[in-house]
């Protein structure tokens, strides 16, 4: 085994800039690399990305491999997997991280299958640690922590016998920070040879829809569950969000019922949020939902059922009719001065 491989991040771009999730992963890679006393590096595949990748040094990235090819302007599975597999084979990183995006979740398994290495999806934490099997001890193994079974269990996964250890991580799970002490990253331009057979998918059209809400950035979220899904209660939820300067979230059943659009969904299959204030209105608190909002700084739960599990994780619990409690809140907030 090679003990000294680096920690590599597959970099995704949105509008020519690295995606937030990729920058978050570069920061995580830096942390893991420091523990392992190795380097952190990123792979940027594309065409005509104007972004200055040396700037990734600010996030603790040591070097960036840039692969430019006109056929790689848009993500398609086969050529991206081929290029990344080649780079991993050449540079032998010990860890490779991907955003758990539609791209990362498409690319990572194909590359892992090619390299016959372990891949853990949707990790919520990554650590370096030891793994013992009977008398064998593996040092400095990537501990990949993820919820499973619909969020009802948390599993720690390791892949000590294959290399590299690969993991995907959702956006917003790791935090991003700029490190002042780091200089520019070293930029290494890589040439690849790709032929027509490497491009079996033809992208005909890409339609970008403007997102009406970005819950990840929200400081205050007022969320509606099934207990607040009737028209009057829902109106109260929207009114409260507007009054407090927050955004509206929703639990999965409310979204599944088509009452609130999908981009408002908070939870394991929706968006993971960590606002300063989360007000859960008529939400019972299924594990899938809690997994997506437990990190909120303050949680207020309003529910008519005093036994609702949401009260177990709320900082403040109010038992009562959602509409009535919200009316009190709006009035109290408007009367604050």
């Amino acid at each position, binding site marked *: 085994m090679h003990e000294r491989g680096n920690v590599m991040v597959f970099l995704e771009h949105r509008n020519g800039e690295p995606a937030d999730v990729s920058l978050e992963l570069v920061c995580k890679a830096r942390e893991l690399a420091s523990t392992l006393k190795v380097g952190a590096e990123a792979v940027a595949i594309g065409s005509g990305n104007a972004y200055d990748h040396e700037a990734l040094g600010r996030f603790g990235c040591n070097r960036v491999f840039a692969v430019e090819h006109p056929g790689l302007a848009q993500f398609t599975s*086969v050529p991206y997997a081929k290029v990344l597999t080649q780079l991993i084979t050449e540079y032998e990183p010990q860890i490779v991280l991907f955003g758990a995006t*539609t791209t990362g979740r498409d690319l990572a*398994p194909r590359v892992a299958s090619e390299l016959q*290495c372990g891949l853990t999806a949707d990790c919520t934490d990554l650590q370096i640690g030891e793994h013992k099997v009977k008398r064998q001890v593996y040092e400095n193994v990537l501990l990949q922590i993820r919820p499973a079974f619909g969020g009802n*269990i948390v599993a720690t996964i390791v892949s000590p016998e294959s290399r590299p250890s690969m993991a995907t991580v959702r956006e917003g799970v790791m935090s991003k920070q700029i490190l002042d002490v780091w200089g520019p990253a070293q930029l290494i331009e890589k040439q690849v040879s790709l032929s027509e057979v490497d491009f079996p998918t033809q992208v005909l059209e890409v339609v970008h829809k403007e997102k009406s809400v970005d819950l990840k950035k929200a400081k205050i979220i007022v969320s509606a569950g099934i207990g607040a899904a009737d028209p009057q209660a829902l109106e109260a939820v929207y009114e409260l969000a507007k009054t407090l300067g927050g955004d509206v979230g929703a639990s999965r059943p409310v979204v599944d019922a088509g009452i609130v659009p999908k981009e408002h969904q908070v939870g394991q299959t929706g968006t993971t949020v960590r606002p300063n*204030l989360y007000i859960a209105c008529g939400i019972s608190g299924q594990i899938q939902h809690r997994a997506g909002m437990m990190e909120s700084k*303050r949680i207020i739960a309003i529910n008519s059922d005093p036994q609702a599990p949401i009260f177990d994780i709320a900082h403040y619990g*109010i038992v009562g*009719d959602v509409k009535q409690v919200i009316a009190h809140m709006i009035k109290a907030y408007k*009367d604050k001065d």
Partner: protein
Amino acid sequence: MAFRIVVFVKQVPDTQNITGQAMKEDGTVNRDALPAIFNPEDANALEEALRVKEIFPDTMITAMSMGPPKASDVLKDCLYRGVDQAVLISDRAFAGADTLATSYALACAVRRLGPVDLILCGRQAIDGDTAQVGPQVAQKLGMNQITSVCDIREINEDWITVVRGIETGFETVRSAFPVLLTVTSAANDPRPPKATLVMAYKNILCHIEDAYDESYIEPACGLGAEHILQWNLASIQADPDRCGLSGSATKVKKIENVVLTATESKRIENTYQSVSGLIHELIHEHILG
């Protein structure tokens, strides 16, 4: 035009609807109390296959599942909806497989079937939510893949045009055959079982084959399945070292049940005065502006 389609289906515990009965006293989930269901997005994949068959009636659809003998339930469900044959991949040697080992066994089984034009599967299964098996099978079969498909726009003998959902919107992409598609719940509303097919298949049995059989002949399309074909390690000529736990690159080091963590929780009375007190407290702490 007649396509040869394989649909992967999985029987999963219903993790999305955990009721009070499934919770143990310590706040963890009693997995045995969860009903086993047809993985939701696999039903969407099956529906897309059946729609292709409606356009091209000579299409041959094989439903395939890997799991314990009980998993034949989901294959029966596929027969009730109109697939031509059903294959269960079942062997103790497959137990404990991660996605790498699972995709290896499925790829071996697809090879056993012979040439395939289109593989359809759900984007992900609700028990693991990994979304890995589809792409890994595609890689092992040297096939193109398109994930998160929410619509099949056009299919003809040369290509298939599909729409895939991405974070920022949609992509319309085209691929020649063979190709593997993973399908999302946005694609369609799966059809219900057909009464005549339920009557025809409700007592269907598994035909266990435990060695590779050279004389194996693909059943002629349209005659209907007589058995659910059950294949094991030997019949798909799989390497035992690449199956099950020994073929898995990932190992579970530790499992912790998620227990409801009681934070320090304050009960606030549902009165204007108490709620107002809370709002002022939050303003004072700069949580509210």
